[in-house]
């Protein structure tokens, strides 16, 4: 079945016009990722509602490729301007920017393109290799397990994402409350609708995504002074030397790709955590690390191979349980839901070919498009970083508002984008995790439906959530996740 699905998935990817969207997605992603303050999340957010005119396969592959391209694009401004285009490229500034100042910007950009490509390929290989095991595990989950997994995802995201764990939990819970508006999934009764018909179908997930990632970020960006270009950028160096240096450090490159994939698969960790951990690990394990932080090419390799690895990794929990591994994965999840595809076990059952098509699209973009386009783009990279944010803000706002309105022609969605955007802005400002909020929104229906179904199965007994080794393991992991932030720093203080 897996082989048939793989063949079908490849057929989907290489059909017209899906392949065109894959190429277009990477190109758009590179440009969007290179603009500081934008990054793949905001880019995907704005494109998401516009995909309503596309078929599901084209839409999902377009967005997955924007994600992959954006992750590479983020390194361009990190290296050239010392301002990462995405959080996943933050560690690339440590050595990438010093290389630029030493006249090696092109070397650093070529290292970034090559390491990103290899990191992306490593992730996809791991995804394909682990697919049979993932399929078996995912399909063995039943209602009580799916309910517990939803809470495990929330617990993980609050722990792994930076900030106070209580604020993370509150954000996640508020997300769950958002999902309770409208018709209850368990009974023919509407909730919190104020007798407004527009609210009967609930508050839309895409409206929340646009509010949190487009409007909140644009309000923040609107307050940042001076647009983007602060100085003229001279790009010097050699592409071939950059490419060669990646191949002369195969262990660092492959290890960073694996770290990225594994860390990326943890809900909430995403590429930002992956590239810091990978960079730390490179510093810990390599010899002669004195130059780390002042232009060591191995620092750029470690950061860049890991963040593209994290793209593939983040898809595992996203597709298997509907728990996004990162903000961009959450948007991809929103796209799946918007196009009528239910993320979760069905992605490894009836929709397996779609899952494999997404994997193959990531492989194609990592193996072919990023190296070719990325290396061609290297000498022109400076142009994108000069885009003025004052021009970007109105474009993103307008596309977000018209985009959300086109989904179901409901004025409540436009108002929701605004309100969630304003709340999201204050949440970001005061250290509340907006990814936890979004995860709560996504998991709300899954958690409520499976809670209801589980309690029906057990005649109302809550012991069903401790019935069997899998359920006990999930509960134990959730509890462990919640006490980890207390225990780990305490243990570290003894060192």
């Amino acid at each position, binding site marked *: 079945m897996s082989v048939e699905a793989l063949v079908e998935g490849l057929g989907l990817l290489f059909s017209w016009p899906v392949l065109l969207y894959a190429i277009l997605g990477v190109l758009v992603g590179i440009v969007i990722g290179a603009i500081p303050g934008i990054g793949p999340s905001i880019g995907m957010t704005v494109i998401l509602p516009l995909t309503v005119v596309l078929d599901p396969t084209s839409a999902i592959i377009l967005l997955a490729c924007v994600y992959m391209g954006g992750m590479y694009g983020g390194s361009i401004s990190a290296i050239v301007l010392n301002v990462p285009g995405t959080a996943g490229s933050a560690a690339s500034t440590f050595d990438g920017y010093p290389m630029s100042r030493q006249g090696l910007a092109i070397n650093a950009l070529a290292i970034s393109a090559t390491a990103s490509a290899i990191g992306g390929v490593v992730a996809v290989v791991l995804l394909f290799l682990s697919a049979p095991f993932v399929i078996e595990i995912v399909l063995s989950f039943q209602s009580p397990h799916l309910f517990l997994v939803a809470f495990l995802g929330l617990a993980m995201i609050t722990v792994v994402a930076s900030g106070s764990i209580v604020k993370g939990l509150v954000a996640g819970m508020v997300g769950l409350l958002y999902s309770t508006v409208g018709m209850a999934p368990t009974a023919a009764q509407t909730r919190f609708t104020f007798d407004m018909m527009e609210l009967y179908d609930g508050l839309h997930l895409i409206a929340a995504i646009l509010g949190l990632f487009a409007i909140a970020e644009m309000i923040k960006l609107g307050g940042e002074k001076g647009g983007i270009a602060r100085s003229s950028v001279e790009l010097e160096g050699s592409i071939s030397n950059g490419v060669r240096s990646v191949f002369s450090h195969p262990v660092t490159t492959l290890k960073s790709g694996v770290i990225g994939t594994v860390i990326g698969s943890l809900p909430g960790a995403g590429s930002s955590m992956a590239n810091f951990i990978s960079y730390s690990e490179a510093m810990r394990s390599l010899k002669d690390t004195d130059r780390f932080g002042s232009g060591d090419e191995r620092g750029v390799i470690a950061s860049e191979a890991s963040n593209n690895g994290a793209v593939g990794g983040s898809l595992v929990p996203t597709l298997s349980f509907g728990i996004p591994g990162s903000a961009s994965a959450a948007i991809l999840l929103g796209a799946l839901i918007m196009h009528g595809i239910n993320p979760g076990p069905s992605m490894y059952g009836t929709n397996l070919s779609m899952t494999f098509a997404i994997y193959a699209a990531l492989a194609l973009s990592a193996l072919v498009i990023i190296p070719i386009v990325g290396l061609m783009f290297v000498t022109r990279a400076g142009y994108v970083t000069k885009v003025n944010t004052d021009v970007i803000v*109105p474009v993103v706002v*307008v596309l977000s508002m018209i985009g959300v309105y086109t989904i179901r022609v409901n004025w409540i969605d*436009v108002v929701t984008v605004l309100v969630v955007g304003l709340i999201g802005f204050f949440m970001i400002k005061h250290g509340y995790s907006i990814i936890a909020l979004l995860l709560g929104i996504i998991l709300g229906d899954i958690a409520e439906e499976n809670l209801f179904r589980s309690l029906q199965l057990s005649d109302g007994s809550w012991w069903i959530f401790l019935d069997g080794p899998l359920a006990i393991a999930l509960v134990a992991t959730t509890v462990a996740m919640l006490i980890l932030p207390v225990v780990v720093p305490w243990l570290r203080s003894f060192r």
Partner: protein
Amino acid sequence: MDDLIEDRIRNALDRLRVLDSDKTVAAFFLAVAGYVFYESGSYSDVAGQFPRIIAGVTMVGCVLIIVGEYLPRPLRSVVTDDGDVFGTADLEAEHDESDEKPYDPVDSTVTALTIVGYVVLILFVGFLVATPLFVVAYGLWKGLSWKTIAPLAVGTTGAVFLLGDTLNIAVEYAIMAVGHVVIGL
């Protein structure tokens, strides 16, 4: 004129600064959760159980955030501290310090207010009129030249028109006139 508006906004923000804290956000969420908790009591058990549980947990979390600094030290650290499970806090802090950009709360406030104004206009005059007005207003506040503002306004309005035309959505009318239910109008 711009300076006068800027001064007024700055004064208003200074007066509101006391409200701009994580506790205010928690208090807002506490109020929302309190309402959900109360309201869900009026639904059937099946429909009300889940929101009631979640609202209860939210309220406990919000109270912990609000009274966080008065809690005993071990509990306070759980509420306020970052766990740093992976031990990357130092590197992230190093990045955050180097990434600090000049930030003006007045510009953020004006951006937020123009977006609020845009949504109000969308509702009452429609996308096609609201969009160029919003782009021009925002561009003028940001000091963009007409050479930048004009193509930007035409481009965004054109995109709105094309999308509406492609999907057969009436973007030229006020949403409140097209929608059948109007908020109290």
